[in-house]
């Protein structure tokens, strides 16, 4: 599991090393570290880290250990890799059904509707879903299209 952490570290030598110890101790694999010096607030420098933990429990324990040694965590969240899906739907489709779809983490980025000068309306959707749910999301769009008697044109 991948997590993003922003730590407020005192701008003194050795502070970062101290903060990394609890992460390493709990099996965290550091993917990136960015010192955000332009956002310095007083003596504190925000340091953003992206860390892979084997399980949520390791992440929770690392957080606890960081707090125990007095490191301020200003932001912490799971990083979910997202994939973009573009699709065109042709037919009289109830758009609400897509908005209310039960795919976890589905986000409609944008959509464009074409006024039907021919027999059918159509809508172009741009959605984001967690990478591991791409197939599930396409299956769900297929199912809705079938039930609504519409045609799904998804990207290859």
């Amino acid at each position, binding site marked *: 599991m991948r997590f993003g952490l922003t730590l407020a570290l005192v701008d003194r030598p050795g502070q970062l090393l101290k903060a990394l110890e609890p992460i390493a101790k709990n099996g965290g694999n550091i993917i990136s570290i960015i010192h955000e010096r332009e956002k310095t607030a007083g003596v504190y420098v925000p340091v953003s880290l992206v860390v892979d933990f084997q399980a949520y429990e390791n992440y929770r324990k690392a957080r606890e250990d960081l707090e125990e040694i007095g490191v301020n965590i200003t932001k912490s969240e799971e990083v979910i890799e997202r994939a973009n899906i573009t699709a065109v739907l042709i037919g009289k489709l109830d758009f609400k059904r897509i908005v209310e779809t039960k795919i976890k983490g589905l986000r409609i980025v944008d959509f464009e509707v074409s006024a039907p000068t021919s027999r059918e309306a159509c809508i172009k959707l741009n959605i984001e879903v967690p990478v591991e749910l791409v197939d599930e999301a396409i299956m769900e769009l297929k199912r809705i299209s079938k039930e609504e008697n519409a*045609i799904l044109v998804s*990207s*290859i």
Partner: protein
Amino acid sequence: MKILIIGFGFIGKNLVKTIYQKIELIKRFDKDFKIIGVSDSKGYLLNEKGLELERLSKINGTSDYSECFLKAGSSLELIEKSGADIMVEATPTNIRDGEPGITHIKRALTIGTHVVTSNKGPLVVAFRTLKNLAEAKGCEFRYEGTVAGAMPVFSLINECLQGDRIVKISGILNGTTNFILSKMYFEGTSFEIALKEAQERGITEKDPAYDVDGIDAACKVVILANAIMDRNEKFEDIERVGIRGVTSEAVSLAKRSNYAIKLIGTIDKNLEVAPKLVPVNHPLCVHGTLNALHFETDLAKELTIVGYGAGKETVSAVLNDLITVLKKKKEQ
């Protein structure tokens, strides 16, 4: 070697014309090459010394040849009594039961005649049976012309990617639907007008449903799945959506986002024929009557071939199969 051509329609006639034009090239592989028999719905021609290629290339039907013509003689009878080494099966495709192609191919293989075919029907209905029969009889069974016309699909996989595992195949497998969708893409015309133009140009099947409802593409998906990916799929297994419902608005919406809508056949864990959005810079985004096939493999990763999938160009694949058999048999 002695050749039989079963079916003297578009492919059969164009094959004869091409053989006539390229006979010197062919004779480099087999100096005794000759066409000894040709059959069509009227009857058959048989001359064990070889039919005259020039004359054969100018006739419209077997009955026009006059000599050696047996009225109402059946293709099966010709296969059995000709003593030919190679049979080219080029009768019309019938995807319901694969006949009469299946019977012709089975009979030829059973009596030890090598088979080259451009007929999709027998492969869609009975690929495994025919392949097993060919192996059991030690015969060549080649079918490059059945999928994507002139494009060397099976030769590419069987000769050039022998160590690769094919993970996914996707592509444009029907030139007529690509012509229609390209018209809609470039000229903003409706499906109906684009279809009419395709019909006027004579590039649709008699029943356009065969093209526009994805039936032809689905047949090719079955053949590719069974012949390349060693599956045992049937036509009914394909999830199929055609292009009748694709509107000019949908094409234009897609175009504004740098996509073209293409009828794509896909073979991975599922088998599907459906209209898809293809990014305009993707190698599958080819237009007009072109076909394109994109392979994803474990070693070569991605590979795309583009070419003409129907018409006279198919003769290229049939002739290559024929020459391959001539070369193999010469080497033995």
